[in-house]
């Protein structure tokens, strides 16, 4: 069972207390966007076999959204962090590099 720590209220709990809200760090293209950009925003999924950045909501707790870095193969959680950021913080990236040298993720645009 996945165990996550909510960075908003500090509670550590099992996955049944949370809800995953899909890939994180998407650029929300809006009016004036090209078809390609809008398609990428809505549909082109990273869906990696490995490191994944994603949105979670502590829906049976404080109710707030946050981000997590997680491995989709081992289910290891590299860390959780505030959703008020465009890119994963350096500490999270370092934690991933320590475990998975050479990992990559699309450009954080």
């Amino acid at each position, binding site marked *: 069972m996945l165990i996550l720590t909510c960075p908003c209220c500090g509670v550590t709990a099992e996955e049944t207390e949370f*809800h995953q809200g899909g890939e994180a760090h998407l650029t929300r293209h809006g009016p004036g966007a090209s078809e390609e950009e809008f398609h990428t925003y809505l549909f*082109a999924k990273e*869906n*990696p076999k490995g490191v994944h950045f994603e949105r979670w909501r502590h829906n049976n707790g404080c109710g707030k959204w946050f981000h997590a870095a997680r491995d989709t193969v081992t289910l290891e959680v590299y860390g959780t962090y505030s959703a008020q950021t465009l890119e994963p913080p350096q500490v999270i990236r370092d934690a991933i590099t320590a475990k998975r040298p050479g990992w990559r993720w699309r450009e954080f645009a």
Partner: protein
Amino acid sequence: MKRYSVFAVAREALRDHMGWERAWASPEPKKRYDVIIIGAGGHGLATAYYLGKNFGITNVAVLEKGWLGGGNTGRNTTIIRSNYLQDPSAAIYEKSRSLYETLSQDINYNIMYSPRGVIMLAQTEHEVRGYKRTAQANALQGVTTEFITPRRVKEIVPIINLDGPRYPVLGGLWQARAGTARHDAVAWGYARACSAMGMDIIQKCEVTGIRRDGGRVTGVTTNRGDIDCDKLGIVVAGHSGHLADMAGFRLPIESVALQALVSEPIKPCMDCVVMANTVHGYMSQSDKGEMVIGGGTDGYNNYTQRGAFHHIEETVRALVETFPMVARLKMLRQWGGIVDVTGDRSPILSKTPVDGIFINAGWGTGGFKAIPGSGWGFAELMAKGHSPLCDAFGLDRFYQGRFIDESVAAGVAH
């Protein structure tokens, strides 16, 4: 290839079964093929089979990183039905179901197709309206289904509890010619038929890279060396995103684990398939007597082939309220497969941004039923560049907002 028949069984019985030959060859990969299919699940093998049978293309290799049918094809709960809502779905799923009817004869391999009937229970007013609508749509599509009363449901499934604690049974969508088949046999039967046509089925051969030249595919890199090809079919279910990444594009697909479990074997007690979408569980009985039970999908992408533990409790709870006798059963085994889910719950049968690469994916939680039809259409797409069965399922539908919404028909994960 020697034919399987009652005479072959009699002949072998008289000589201690020493004369059976290997069902398919295990060749070394050649340097080049006209067509390479990645993934020897049902969809990959069926594609190869119909490429040979319908289009005479036999210089084909099917590359499989593990063993034949070791992906979702050998892990599913084998429900076959075609009572979908949208016309393009009805066309491909009904083509598939009808091919299943005579597949054993066609490939001379007993796939044990059992048209035992499938009921999808309606347990809310919303579901009643939804299934009545589906029954009407099916009538227009030429798919035989019927909305039945709770009394009929009880006649067909005596072990059911009509007045469950949460959701009483208000009716059901009944497809009498839907049913089940033996999953491994579908993979094995197609593999044997492909091998007999001279195709190479290469197991333990993992594709690790896709080679391109000026926007066109030239071949693949594998753990058994480079292999060249004219056309490449990616048919890898849960690993579609991973392979698309190797080819340099992304897909509207996310991979999650879906699980299933079986009980200890018991005497025959239910001779059809029952799906209860509202409480989220479904069940059928295998020929060995095990109750085959479909579970839930995980709530986050993963590649674990295991599934989250708490789904077992949710699934079993749903079944106990639908079939109280299940409470006295022991569960024997549980397992998971990685399913490839699209936003509109419909598959992708399409050309890709790379010339010569085609993709067959997104069957998600319900593609076993579609194997023959998908192979039929995808072979045509790969051979001729388009296919009436596949045209609506292209990647372009995500640019055009032309979705084939089957989120209701897909309902429970199956």
